[in-house]
């Protein structure tokens, strides 16, 4: 009976890592497509990835519920499973938003050279946040999870800088309004992905230490 339980936990772990890796790939492909400007191929790939992420979410949900019902886990195992249930929601949102970004990028057209450095930096920051949070999950490393939150502040300030540069451009009446809006949306989506990565990291911390956002839950 226990053996089966361990097996199911290992499967859960593997599926979680796969889902995290899919998210990383989705946002990496998306970011590359904006920065390098080869949208049509990228959007198909992201769409496939988004579908896979959704499928993984359902799979993991069913694994978690099966585990909860059949094995009635306690303590660390229970934390791990309930944290997984929360994390997949954030991961699924990351997939959705990656697709949103790719679609918006198609409307937006090529990135203007003056926006590239800031947006590129934001994208790299967010990608590293997703990677770090998945890494923290893989290694069950609460400390690494904690460092993701710090990066989120940097991502937020990058977003604010992009926003002010857009405002400045609008006030100068240069460029098209549509482009500016699309760029703002993309930056906002990226910033949201950063928030989801932070959430994931917080749940990793919870699953390892039992502390969520600085407070005991169980």
């Amino acid at each position, binding site marked *: 009976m226990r053996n089966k339980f361990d097996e199911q936990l290992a499967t859960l772990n593997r599926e979680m890592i796969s889902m*995290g890796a899919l998210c990383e790939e989705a946002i990496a492909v998306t970011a590359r497509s904006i920065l390098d400007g080869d949208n049509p191929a990228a959007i198909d790939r992201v769409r496939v990835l988004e579908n896979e992420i959704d499928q993984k979410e359902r799979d993991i949900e069913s694994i978690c519920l099966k585990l909860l019902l059949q094995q009635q886990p306690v303590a660390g195992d229970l934390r791990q499973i309930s944290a997984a249930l929360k994390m997949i929601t954030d991961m699924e949102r990351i997939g959705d938003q990656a697709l949103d970004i790719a679609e918006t990028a198609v409307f937006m057209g090529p990135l203007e050279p003056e926006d590239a450095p800031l947006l590129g930096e934001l994208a790299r920051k967010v990608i590293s946040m997703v990677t770090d949070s998945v890494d923290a999950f893989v290694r069950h490393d609460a400390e690494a999870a904690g460092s993701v939150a710090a990066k989120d502040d940097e991502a937020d300030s990058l977003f604010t800088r992009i926003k002010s540069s857009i405002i400045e451009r609008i006030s100068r009446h240069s460029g098209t309004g549509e482009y500016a809006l699309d760029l703002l949306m993309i930056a906002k989506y990226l910033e949201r992905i950063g928030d989801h990565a932070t959430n994931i990291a917080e749940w990793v911390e919870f699953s390892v230490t039992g502390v969520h956002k600085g407070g005991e839950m169980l």
Partner: protein
Amino acid sequence: MTKKIFRAIFMVAFLVLLACLALITGVLYDNFTRQQSDQLSAQAELAAQGVEDEGLAYFDGLDSGDTRITWIAADGSVLYDTDADSGAMENHSTREEFIEAVETGRGESSRYSSTLSTETIYRAVLLDDGTVLRTAADHDTVLALLLGMFFPLLAIVAAAVALAAWLASRLARRIVGPLNAIDLDSPLENEAYDELSPLLTRVESQKEQIKSQLEELSRRREEFSAVTDNMSEGLILLDREGMILSINPSAARIFGAGSASIGRDILTLDRSPELRSLMESASAGRHGEVVIERGGAEYQLSASPVLTDGVSRGTVLLAFDVTEKLKAERIRREFTANVSHELKTPLHSIMGAAELLQDGLVKSEDQQRFLGRIRSEAERLVALVDDVIDLSRMDEGDNFPREETDLLQLARDVAGDLGPAAEKRGIAISVGGSGGSVFGVRRLLWEIVWNLCDNAVKYGRDGGHVSVAVEGTASGGVSLSVADDGIGIPAEHRARVFERFYRVDKSHSRATGGTGLGLSIVKHAAQYHGAQIELESEEGRGTRIAVLFPPRSTG
């Protein structure tokens, strides 16, 4: 064990007790009964004699003890009884012993009491007057006897239980004690009782077998790890679920895995899309290969499923470092592309000029110029093809004839050849040094000097200076150095200028001419002679390239 022994001992004791009881009771009871009956018969005879003689008076003052004496008339009515009132007693004419006595003179019988606890035996004697004298005595039945012995017997059984229990536990201890004390590491050296020796022999032989199997196992494992630990390829063995069973040091280095990674999922080491697709194909039973980039190096990962009866039991993951291979491939591709391009450019020129000439579109006074261009481009082609042939011959490692060559003289010749080109740009070439000769391939040495000097002139500053020096080195070799004060080579290009067709100026500017193969030929020619090349350069200040020939081998 104790329980079994206890049961056996107790059963034996109990059976012995029962048997003894039955025997003794049977024999003694029989004996006792016979004695009593003899005594009773004697008493009957005695009493009969007495009554014959004295009549009723015989009974006066007679103490008959336990024996009851009854005098019965011929009709069966009781005349006298020592124990009861004769008048109250019933007629005895139907009694067995009475009937027997009347018929035969003597009668006997026995009857059990209503409780079966006592048996009464009777003896009857017929008197002369036709009356019958009967004696009777009671004795306890076997059942009553046994009932009487019940409590003592119980005590004995209880004692037997206690004794059996004690003996059983003691015996069990004595049997098991040596077993527990057996030293299994050296079974045959134990001092145990004889019955144990077959067991000990078997233990010994099994121990030997286990030991040899363990040794075999650890030997195999050592062999395996000796092989895998020292291979430069990464090797990871995975089970069906993708858990790491074994990972060799090279693989651990490639994936940055710690010692704790055994028993964990391969995806915890690497979750790149390439590896995941590889694992998917492996778990589906297909062989797969991908190239991944880790820490600046490129690795080819190949995953082979381990199939037993068509079912995947696990996966073998091999990682080769293909950085060099891919780099060589890239260089070869670039080289091919470059060669084609370089060959095509002069041909286009030649074709263009030839077409114009053929179509008669060239004025007669320009014809010479066009023919000149065709010739110079053809010369360029020939030079390029020569260079490529030289390079490929050196690549093949062809043997060229070697001869003693004076490098200083060679440098002077080259300087003379380059004189017109240098003069055109106002560059002065000076050849100096103590001189030295090398035993080598004259043609290749000429290529070295020529290409170095040609480059120095090409990339030198207008009105600048090129100095060529041939000197003996401290180690007994010869050094050839060519220095200019031209544009220099930027730091990021220095490592690559010896590659074929590599040019600092990517536009492949034709202003300076050249094939892009010069330094590559120098490198190969130097290698052919076992010489080393030193490159010193400062952007905007000039370049100095020295070729250090090793001391001549005496052999």
